[in-house]
């Protein structure tokens, strides 16, 4: 929960990293919030879990590498990261394929995350 100074802002990533620049711009936004010392959390659900896959190589499509952008999160002290357990299981992704240290959470826990946030931002 938030204190008086910082708000708990939860970014919800729902889309795959390529094919659309929305995920990248959402990430830029989260990094900006990190600079402003807000309590930033991130949850990856549905197709959004593809963003966390390691060994991304986007050179062939001339699109910035999303994994590299994500790796900047720790520099901004954003470590509060959650992944939807059902989404990764459905997509046959196993935890060691994730490029970031993230908490794997159930539907119930995701609901709790949503409830405890002051602001939800959906991308």
């Amino acid at each position, binding site marked *: 929960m938030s204190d008086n100074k910082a708000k708990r802002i939860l970014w919800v990533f729902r889309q795959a990293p390529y094919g659309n*620049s*929305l995920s990248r711009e959402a990430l830029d*936004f989260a990094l*900006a*919030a990190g600079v*402003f010392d*807000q309590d930033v959390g991130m949850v990856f659900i549905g197709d959004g879990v593809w963003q966390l896959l390691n060994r991304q190589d986007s050179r062939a499509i001339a699109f910035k590498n999303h994994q590299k952008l994500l790796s900047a999160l720790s520099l901004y002290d954003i470590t509060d990261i959650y992944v939807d357990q059902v989404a990764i299981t459905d997509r046959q992704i196993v935890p060691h394929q994730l490029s970031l240290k993230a908490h794997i959470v159930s539907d119930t826990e995701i609901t709790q995350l949503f409830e405890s946030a002051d*602001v939800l*931002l959906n991308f």
Partner: protein
Amino acid sequence: MKFSILVLGSPYSNQSVNTALRFAKAVVASEHSLYRVFFYHDAVQCGNALVTPPQDDVDIPAEWQQISETDTAELIVCIASALKRGVLDTTEAERYEKDSSNLADEFIISGLGQMVDATIHSDRVITFGP
């Protein structure tokens, strides 16, 4: 209650922009207030003065301008999203040595910090689109 709106969709492509507009009008018409509208991602085209809709269609930039005129709400266009999509004010046009600028009146080009600030200072933040 203070509201801020984050608009992501492309005008004339996504219904979400029209929905955001209607929501903004409802806020302005109510006892609540609109603190800031932030145009991000494809929504920066809402601030393009060269948008020329057919007569029987909504003039989206003009509708937003009206909201800003009737309320104190700021219309902020994200600089990073806008420049790469060809929406520039005179300052940016000069900086990048472009022949012309096209940011519509009432809109302001600024950074993501403005949206972070809106998130901190509003009671509610509503995202529309894409």
